């Protein structure tokens, strides 16, 4: 063997000790599905792989009544997130986003924490997490901080995570009478990298959706993993889900602002309006179930 032995922590304390002892010389392996694609030629001599799969504290999906939130461990896979009844009930758009990641094989390994940490602008779950108002829990030796999911990556391929930090979990606030939906456009129907994705969540007062509050509209694959569309949110507050044309035009404006002059601008300008129609339609169909 010409490469270093991997390390296999089983607790967060062991992990943090290893990260401190090998600072600057380690790579963290969550599911590995992005790691080994980026490092096809090998991890590199002198680099130590720290495997996160044995740390039980990084797993689990549960409702934390004390914080009125849904907590999802960073090492939960796309399969477990997409099939979990709590996620489907409280964070439908996230379950949908996770179900559209790669193939069945990839969803069985890829993790929600890895998807955020990798900071790909074409990732599927960041826009859903941002639309749900999720917080990312970052832990380092002796400290913990929380940052909004939409703030974790402000530039392509980079994130706000410090070298000594790790994502431990995501916390999604539970909101009454809330609905959410996710849509994605790729070059094919399955095993597709997103050309564009859209996640919307909101609270509604009645089945007619005459009053919408706290809408959160985020698009992915517009330069960064999750880009907010405040104009589209204003349209939802003023006109509800019924004003689909105006909502879609607001989304097209977001494309113009985000990627002016880029070769994909015209395609994405059109595609995001189709996504807007699909997501609006899904939200309308879910209203009845959302309102008590």
């Amino acid at each position, binding site marked *: 063997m010409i490469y270093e032995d991997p390390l296999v922590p089983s607790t967060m304390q062991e992990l943090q000790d290893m990260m401190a002892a090998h600072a600057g010389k380690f790579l963290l392996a969550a599911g590995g599905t992005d790691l080994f694609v980026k490092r096809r030629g090998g991890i590199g001599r002198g680099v130590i792989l720290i495997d996160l799969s044995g740390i039980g504290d990084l797993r689990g999906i549960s409702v934390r009544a004390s914080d009125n939130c849904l907590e999802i461990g960073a090492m939960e896979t796309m399969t477990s997130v997409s099939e979990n009844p709590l996620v489907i009930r409280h964070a439908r758009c996230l379950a949908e986003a996770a179900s559209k990641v790669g193939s069945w094989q990839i969803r069985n390994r890829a993790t929600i924490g890895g998807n955020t940490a990798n900071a790909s602008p074409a990732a599927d779950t960041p826009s859903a997490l941002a639309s749900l108002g999720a917080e990312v829990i970052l832990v380092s030796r002796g400290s913990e901080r929380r940052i909004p999911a939409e703030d974790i990556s402000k530039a392509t391929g980079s994130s706000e995570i410090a070298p000594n930090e790790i994502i431990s979990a995501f916390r999604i606030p539970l909101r009454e009478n809330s609905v959410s939906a996710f849509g994605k456009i790729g070059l094919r129907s399955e*095993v597709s990298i997103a050309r564009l994705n859209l996640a919307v969540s909101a609270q509604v007062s009645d089945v007619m959706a005459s009053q919408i509050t706290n809408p959160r509209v985020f698009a992915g694959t517009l330069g960064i993993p999750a880009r907010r569309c405040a104009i589209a949110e204003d349209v939802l507050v003023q006109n509800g889900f019924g004003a689909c044309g105006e909502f879609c035009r607001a989304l097209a404006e977001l494309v113009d602002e985000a990627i002016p002059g880029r070769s994909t601008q015209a395609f994405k300008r059109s595609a995001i309006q189709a996504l807007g129609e699909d997501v609006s339609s899904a939200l309308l169909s879910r209203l009845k179930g959302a309102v008590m």
Partner: protein
Amino acid sequence: MDVHFTLNGENMSAAADSSTRLIDMLREGCGIKSVREGCGVGECGACTVLMNGDPICSCVTPAVQARGCDVTTVEGLETDGELDAIQESFVTNDAIQCGFCTPGMILTAKALLARNPSPSREEIRRSIAGNICRCTGYIPIINAIEAAAARTREENTAPL
């Protein structure tokens, strides 16, 4: 480090370093050559194995993550010299041409039928979306999986 795991029902130990992928450990450390490397980036599914019953791409899985796990390759489907119903069905339905994708395709089908004994053709199609075949055009493969499901259901309901 030595990775201890179960391979096709038997205890196994194989060496892995930080750069070793599961496919490398299986092919070079364990002599399992049915696990093929196609794309090497988790898209073609030729490297599919079952880990604790779930299909995964062994070309993008760190070998160290197999420790303590139950890994199944297509060699593990045969029982006392008898092919599994899915393997037989692939043969009788002409679902094999060059054979490169076949082990991965069969393992994905095995996982599907373990969860869903009566999949629709659409469910079969979706489950094998991560297994690319460049020869058959998929129709014989879908036929084979559908037929294997029917045969397995019949066998499970037949009187003893």
